[in-house]
């Protein structure tokens, strides 16, 4: 309870400083709008449907790209962890490409796919898949072999061994791989939406981009606020329950 009070006081103070600074008249309100004009923009965008539409489009792209990234990344991560040859080849490739910021995929995606949803998806998948491989691989390498040994003496083998022992044993690493992937997918999509301007859907990144084109600072800040809000909400809703479960069971911090 005390923590909630402290946190709300902090954010209220932040809003207070912002509104005093913007009201002081030292900076042009065009470049430095007050929190109230940003709120008014968000309210208007919410009522006329642009905001809901943008969130919907963004989430759809994110979920599709993220799902493809996981579908490729999780099995590949498990494979690289189980074979030295795959580790030296695919693992090394993943390690290299993971250092490439996802925005660097945009020029290539634009040339290959043009101004299409495909380009957008490509950037998200490329931004996600390598980090998922690395996180899963790293995790699976650290499963204590004693679990499989103990289970085998009790008569567990084959499918039973994989679903009842190896899968739950690797859960902490799968979750950290998925969380890593989510963070990367989200960043990649924002980069893609800002740079790939297409007409098939108008996402949050594009809202931000056109805010700049129109010099509408309230729109820019409003879109940024929404991106922060959705990013942290997704973290809460998607991963916190898992992490709490892991923390309770394993007694370790899953962070």
């Amino acid at each position: 309870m005390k923590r909630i009070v402290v946190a709300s006081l902090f954010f209220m103070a932040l809003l207070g400083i912002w509104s005093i600074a913007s009201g002081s008249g030292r900076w042009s309100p065009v470049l430095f709008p007050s929190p109230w004009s940003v709120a008014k923009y968000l309210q208007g965008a919410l009522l006329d449907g642009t905001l809901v539409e943008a969130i919907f489009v963004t989430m759809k792209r994110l979920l599709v790209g993220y799902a493809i990234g996981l579908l490729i990344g999780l099995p590949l991560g498990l494979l690289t962890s189980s074979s030295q040859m795959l580790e030296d080849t695919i693992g090394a490739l993943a390690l290299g490409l993971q250092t490439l910021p996802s925005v660097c995929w945009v020029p290539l995606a634009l040339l290959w796919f043009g101004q299409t949803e495909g380009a957008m998806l490509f950037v998200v998948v490329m931004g996600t898949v390598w980090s998922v491989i690395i996180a899963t691989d790293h995790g699976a390498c650290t499963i204590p072999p004693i679990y499989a040994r103990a289970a085998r003496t009790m008569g567990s083998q084959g499918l039973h061994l994989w679903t009842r022992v190896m899968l739950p044993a690797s859960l902490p690493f799968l979750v950290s791989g998925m969380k890593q992937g989510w963070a990367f997918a989200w960043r990649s999509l924002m980069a893609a939406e800002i740079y790939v301007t297409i007409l098939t859907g108008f996402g949050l990144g594009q809202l931000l981009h056109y805010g700049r084109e129109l010099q509408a600072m309230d729109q820019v800040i409003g879109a940024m606020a929404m991106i922060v809000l959705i990013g942290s909400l997704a973290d809460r809703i998607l991963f916190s329950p898992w992490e709490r479960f892991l923390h309770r069971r394993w007694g370790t911090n899953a962070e």
Partner: protein
Amino acid sequence: MNMAEAQWQGVTPEHVSGASSKLIVESVSKWFRTPRATVHALDSISIQVAAGEVVCLVGPSGCGKSTLLDIIAGLTKPDSGRVLADGQLVTGPGRQRLVVFQEPSLFPWLDVFGNVMFGLKLCPELTNDERREVAHRFLGLVGLDKFERVHVHELSGGMKQRVALARALAADPQVLLMDEPFGALDAMTREHLYDDVQRIWRDSGKTIVFVTHNMREAVCLGDRVLLMSRAPGKIIQAFDIPLPRPRSIYDVELVGHAARVADALRGTVGGGVPE
């Protein structure tokens, strides 16, 4: 079936016919090959364990005693020789021979009760109600019936090994293999567990093979103590421990037996192998 096995099938060594031998290890050898060297770990080891007997394997560290236990469990294949359990050739791990490991081997994603149930769920002859009843009973036997819903990481080291013991016993194995199960525990907890193991052995009459490097532990628990040499591991001496049970590790006679084993071990570590 490979050549060696076929050969074994043809002859019946006289000690196989002894129906009282629960477990027979016949001239088992094992080499470990690493890129840099080949280590001869076990050198034609033969052991017979009678039903209901407790046999302790002691030896210097690195003598291959844990490897031997792994081979008996079926987790590792011997390079030559074979292991028979109840007259059956051991070809892989199975719940007739359950292991209590030194490292904590409980599954952290299950609670205490779930861990004991894991082995029981692999016993198709039991109904679910029977499984639950058995799990309750064995957790009671190791004194942890109050901790059934506790998560593994919340247990102390001694409690974890008690749960591992209950998990192994619950599935009613023919042979219980214990690989330095109390090595990582403090002295006080260990002494408690010696009492528990002796009580459980008295009540269940299980055949137990117990690996340790602690002489007093070996003498306290074993009907027989087998001393292994440093690698390549061989059984170099056997000690009968004809003391009444339950034994206390502070018993003067027991300490005397432990000293005998320790003296013999010192001979092997010093290099001279007393034959």
